[in-house]
């Protein structure tokens, strides 16, 4: 069996004796007999490291990994610089706990301060927390930031990722919050309906929208923000961090809270996690942010120092009055995002964003020529929706045969496509030719 207990049987015997016990059984006599497990666990016998590695590798090989990926919808296949992996594997970062002891945690604390700064730069905001679980939970936890005694009802645009909406619904079931979906029109939030809904509801607390939205289309965020603010509610934007390097920032759009998933910033798609929820806000909302925040200060000799700050917002101090229960977060993912942004720099991030959107436009043109029709006409970033007259499954199977993961099938004949800088012209041409062959085959 495998074991990570260093003390030998003999050493264990000695220690038991020194602590005053005859045996392990004697030591555990503090547990009442009625609740003791009196049989071995029904598990396989333990393995050596070599066996465990082999078994896990075999399991991993039962997954199909695709060489070319045209699927996004919340998990984006961007390039990950080599330095990202090397820095985030450093054991001082990997094996440390939350940096409560500032004197021996300056490295971690400074790295979080740098992360907060970069997220503020991306979003245009004043304050960012040190991470949340993922983009969906960050969106869900933006709601309590916006609620007060008079404003209790949350709104979400139906163009937000359905997975995000589902998480928001579950959180709202918990907090007994009414969550209302705002309908869409032509692939974007229906502004007339939104204005009317908010006007009729003096209790409206916030609108959560996504930019670019689930269909890849840019919403008129500035206008949405104006409508929301006119109704006395708060405006929450869920944003793609790569797009932020070239797209109007949440601050420029008047957002009160910016949230999103930081996965595109250096994290592998990895079957959905761990990813990175980010939350940023103007200074006026600072004390409503959930989670850890690092601040700069000085030590007793006047040196620059970093500490966890504003802790009285948090559960370990405020207990049931805390606005969130978050404790463990996604700190190492925040470090990953920091190293990614530092490696890419502003120019590199803009390049990744521009290539992603350029390729999406190229792919859309190619798919149009091949016979697919875009469902909406709005300007888009790196995702878009087409019909699929030959059937989504049939098309995706044909692509899979060539090692290509096609877009996400939304229905039997509608597909959500995605590109990043990782997709080459050559592979996009290949996708188009497979589509063209299928369609002409069907027509023939």
């Amino acid at each position, binding site marked *: 069996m*495998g074991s990570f207990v260093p003390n030998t049987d003999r*050493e264990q015997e000695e220690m038991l004796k*020194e*602590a005053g016990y005859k045996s392990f059984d004697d030591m*555990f006599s*503090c*547990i009442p007999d009625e*609740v003791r*497990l009196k049989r071995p666990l029904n598990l396989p016998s333990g393995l*050596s490291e070599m066996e465990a590695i082999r078994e*896990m590798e075999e399991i991993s090989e039962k*997954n199909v990994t695709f060489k070319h990926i045209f699927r996004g919808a919340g*998990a984006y296949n961007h390039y990950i610089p080599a*330095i990202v992996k090397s820095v985030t594997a*450093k054991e*001082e970062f990997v*094996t440390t*706990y939350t940096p409560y*002891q500032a*004197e*021996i*945690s300056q490295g971690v604390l*400074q790295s979080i301060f740098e992360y*907060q*700064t970069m997220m503020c*730069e*991306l979003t245009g905001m*004043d304050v960012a927390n040190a*991470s949340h*679980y993922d983009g*969906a*939970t960050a969106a869900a936890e933006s709601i309590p930031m916006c609620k007060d005694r008079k404003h209790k009802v949350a709104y979400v645009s139906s163009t937000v990722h359905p997975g995000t909406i589902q998480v928001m619904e579950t959180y709202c079931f918990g907090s007994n919050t009414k969550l209302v979906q705002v309908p869409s029109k032509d692939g974007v939030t229906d502004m007339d309906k939104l204005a009317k809904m908010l006007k009729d509801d003096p209790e409206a607390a916030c609108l959560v929208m996504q930019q670019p939205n689930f269909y890849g289309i840019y919403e008129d965020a500035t206008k949405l923000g104006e409508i929301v603010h006119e109704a006395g509610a708060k405006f929450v934007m869920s944003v793609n961090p790569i797009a932020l390097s*070239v797209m109007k920032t949440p601050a420029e759009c008047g957002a009160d809270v910016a949230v999103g998933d930081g996965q595109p910033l250096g994290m592998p*798609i*990895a*079957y*959905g*996690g*761990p990813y990175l929820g980010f939350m940023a806000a103007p200074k006026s909302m600072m004390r409503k942010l959930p989670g850890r925040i690092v*601040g*700069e200060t*000085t030590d*007793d*000799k006047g040196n620059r120092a970093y*500490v966890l700050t504003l802790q009285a917002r*948090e*559960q370990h*101090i405020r*207990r049931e*009055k*805390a606005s969130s229960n*978050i404790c*463990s977060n*996604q700190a*190492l993912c925040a470090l990953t995002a920091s190293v990614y942004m*530092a490696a890419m*720099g502003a120019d590199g991030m803009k390049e990744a964003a*521009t290539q992603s*959107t*350029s390729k999406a436009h190229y792919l859309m043109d190619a798919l149009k020529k091949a016979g697919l029709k875009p469902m909406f006409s709005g300007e888009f970033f790196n995702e878009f929706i087409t019909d699929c007259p030959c059937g989504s499954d049939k098309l995706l199977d044909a692509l899979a045969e060539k090692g290509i993961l096609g877009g996400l099938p939304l229905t039997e004949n509608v597909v959500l496509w995605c590109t990043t800088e990782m997709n080459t012209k050559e592979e996009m041409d290949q996708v188009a030719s497979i589509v063209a062959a299928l369609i002409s085959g069907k027509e023939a």
Partner: protein
Amino acid sequence: MDLIFEIGSEGRKLSLLPKCDVPEVKVPESQSRKTALHLPHVSENELSRHYSKLAKRSHGVNDGFYPLGSCTMKYNPKVNEIAASFKGFTGVHPLQNERTVQGSMEVIKKTEDTLCEIAGMDAFTLQPAAGAHGEFTGLLLIKAYHVDRGDTKRTKIIVPDSAHGTNPASAAMCGFDVVSIPSQDDGCVDLDALRGAVGDDTAGLMLTNPNTVGLFDKNILQITKIVHDAGGLCYYDGANLNAVMGIARPGDMGFDAVHINLHKTFSTPHGGGGPGAGPVGCKEFLKQFLPGHHVAGDENEGFRYEIETKSIGAVKMFHGNFLVIVRALTYMLMLGKEGVPEASSNAVLNANYMRTKLDDLYEMAYDTTCMHEFVMSLEPLKHKTGVSALDVAKGLLDYGIHPPTMYFPLIVEEALMIEPTETEPKEVLDEAIVALRALYKEATDNPEALHSAPHNTVIGRPDEVGAARNTVLRYQWTD
């Protein structure tokens, strides 16, 4: 040291992306960013060295003893990292067709089955990303259960006063009122107080066992019965599961739902605060409310996803912190049926060994057999010398030892909570015992030195009041 924004110079960069091979398309003018974007301008060498410097100013389990009570800072096996780096795991999209992710589904199924056996539960969800997230999920199951039965007056969750802060905070997030009940002098639940607190408005009880003072509550069967008799459910906070794996199971103690911290008990690294994973298990009657997708089937017939009939929805996008789950499963495979109880037995042994080597000098909050951790009260020392728990904790930094958890649980004055874990050799425990005894002597002989400790760290005590009053939460560019 410099911030990453204070090194490098304009124009320095890494060579990462090829030229774009399709015609360039810009973001439409009406949607384009107007604010300047400041990010570091560094070469790869500078970037790499910057983080090496930061790493040297950090302290992980790999750097030394880390007896942080309630956090189970055990060694993080490297085999876990290898498994989590397999392309078959890192390279799959969360929205791939079931046929193409049978490996991921097998990981999930095997992990769920193993946790069911260890916890004595019937089903698990791996969606929650952290312990507190698990508490939230488990309490939602309890809420959904009562709502489903039309029993809507059950609005109260009972939490002992010794509980982790996440317990009451999680209950509040689920719309429950929190009823705090006092602990007895021995640190265990006061049964009379519990009987007085339960009623037809009780939704449930949240409890950690061993409790937050490190003791196994011997009345556990009575406790869960009192709650069940009143119509409430019992939730097990698995923060302290490392004490009892293979020894006693929450399911056999009468608990209906649990969460487990994979980043504590199952050796996945803490990463400076996360990512962790907080899977939630439950008894059969609560299974119908579980969030997310549930893996059914087996290796032979193939795995498939099912959604529970009365699911509470989803607490996170996709399938949880998947690579954390991969690490935990690797660890469980290695330990197996023999290694799991061996780990817990030695965690408890190491704690009792340290406790009995210190209890002649330091006052133990509860001077009896502890489980995987024990709590000392420095109140008598503070009374005698003026040296507080904080001072002793800071003094340990000069010995290269991470301090124990301080001032928790709240019911013990000047508390220091020590959790050595099973992965520390005897010599490390002996060194820590020597250090703690030396600090006691120093407190008596030279208290002033301890008031200003630590002396050998890269900074001295920081001004936390100043940090909170004049908040500087980001670097500001001057242009």
